[in-house]
């Protein structure tokens, strides 16, 4: 069936620590992928 629950709510001030952790991990993942691509 289409459309299982996802709730793409993006958070703001009260979830700032989660957002910072999330963004840091996303950025770190992007950097790691770039470096791995360059090594290859």
């Amino acid at each position: 069936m289409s459309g299982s629950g996802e709730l793409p709510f993006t958070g703001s001030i009260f979830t700032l620590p989660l957002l910072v952790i999330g963004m840091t991990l996303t950025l770190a993942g992007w950097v790691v992928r770039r470096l791995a691509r360059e090594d290859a």
Partner: protein
Amino acid sequence: MRLLPSRGTDHARRATGVETTRVAVLVASKDGASTIGATVASAVGQADVFVVSDGSRDRTGAVARAAGAHVIELTENVGKPAAIHHALTTLRLAERYDAIAILDDDTTIAPNFIRKAVERFREGVAIVVGRTMTRWPHENRWNVWLGSRAYAYWRYQATLRRGQSALGVMNCISGSNSVFRSSVLAQIAIEQTPYIVDDTYWTLETHRRKLGRIVYAPDAHAWVCDPLTLRDWYRQNLRWIWGMYQGIAGHHVGRRVTRFDVASVLLMLDWCAYVFGMPIAIGLALWLGWFSLHLVLFYAIGYAAWTLLAAIATKKWRLAAMLPAIAVIDVIYRVVFVHALVKTIREPRVTSCRWVSPVRY
């Protein structure tokens, strides 16, 4: 990597790329003939695929079978959780497989989806949630509802979901593309969930019964059909948020002192700030007579910065051009939050988890 002792065919074992892990894919579908073929085709090389046709009146079963799935055809429409439960019990999937991926019938997964998800199944992990992305075909490239959803998925998953995953406090999984440890799914997949969103029930049961961590796998990619019209978009969001509110009430979220509850309360405070922050700010500005460019700029710069970032990250440059539409849709989203609250007060539980899917494309 090892989940549980493996049993069964070599096919699924080889396909996962993880020698000791056996994975099944399970899809419930009602009248999904137009999309189920692509869903099965995307998964059939990675795992054994099972489709439950939930009282379909079209050729769902035949199309799924032709694409390579094992098919169960139910004569009556029983709803997704009942269909999933039926397949689990009659086919004994939880006994035969170590992990079970549940996909929607309009979801397609990347060729390495199962392998990437299984890699995250470390000790103590109950559910692995894939990365959801909007299927955004060329003919719908300027559809603002798809654009808004593509933006929301990216922003939500790159920030909040990733942070929640790191701290083990995910309040929501993707029902369209998540992989469950079989022993966990067998415990939480009941025949009729009391909430309109079955995966909300599964998520909260996993937390409450301490069945394991829920983690996000950003490299396990899945594409889903999202609503194309205001009507479908509104109805889908309303159902999702209604289901979430039902879960909060039914599982007494926020009434215990656990990390999950504290994080959930903070999230709820965020919802309040999100819904009421903008109208309060505008009201105050009008009332105090200093409505100025600053307030408009505050919101405009925020929307512009996030939309531009999303456009860069997803390489969908038209997102930047859709900025005004995304901002307007975000205002409507606030209305849905309030509407869903009223709906939850009137209907805190459901007896049947059935709904009409948005138009597939």
